């Protein structure tokens, strides 16, 4: 009995190992893919951004008044981390928090590719 279950467990482990290896190998690839945005797709998702970030001299009016930052030409990775920080709550701005809450990783990667540089 014991031997049989040991053999079964060993067999199951042997079968699972390659699956785990594949899953581990696939994870970084997926991450990479998520970070690789599509600039053209980003352009189609940028309607919400244009009204503030593409108007030179435009100021946010709430909760405090200051110029909306220049983001065109930032690195894509910074734009990605900024949007994720808003989504996570590490950065707080009512407008940006609301906008980032509705963005998927894919959206963020695409917008970062559109507005950012490599």
């Amino acid at each position: 009995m014991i031997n049989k279950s040991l053999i079964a467990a060993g067999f199951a482990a042997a079968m699972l190992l390659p699956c785990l290896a594949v899953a581990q190998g696939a994870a970084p690839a997926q991450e990479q893919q998520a970070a690789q945005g599509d600039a053209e797709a980003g352009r189609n998702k940028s309607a919400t951004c244009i009204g503030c970030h593409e108007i030179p001299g435009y100021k946010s009016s709430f909760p405090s008044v200051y110029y909306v930052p220049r983001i065109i030409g930032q690195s894509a990775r910074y734009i990605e981390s900024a949007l994720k920080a808003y989504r996570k709550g590490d950065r707080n701005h009512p407008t940006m928090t609301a906008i980032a809450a509705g963005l998927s990783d894919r959206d963020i990667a695409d917008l970062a590719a559109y507005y950012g540089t490599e």
Partner: protein
Amino acid sequence: MNMPASKLLRMKPRSVACGAMLAALSVLALPAQAQDIEAGRQKAEEVCAACHGKDGNTPIDPTYPKIAGQYQDYLEHSLLDYKHDRRKNPIMGAQAKPLTRADIRNLAAYYASLTGEISNRR
């Protein structure tokens, strides 16, 4: 506070005049919040340059922003948010905490005075 568009349009010249007056006033108010770009440059070399690059344009990590040529008041706002933990980032929190209000004003003025690669025009 809904206002017909026609009324808004009629208000426009007055708003422009108000804006001009405010702009004039803000220029008058500047000496009260004197900023020292040279002091900002010195502080920048001490504190910021190691990560954001000597020119503020060449950060050592792609997740760090280019800050040269960024709006002065946005930079000031960001540093204050880091200082007071409203913007959470372990590295920037630690860097901003020891900065005085004057340091922050000077740093923001210095980096805003540089020519950068970032803009609002595609």
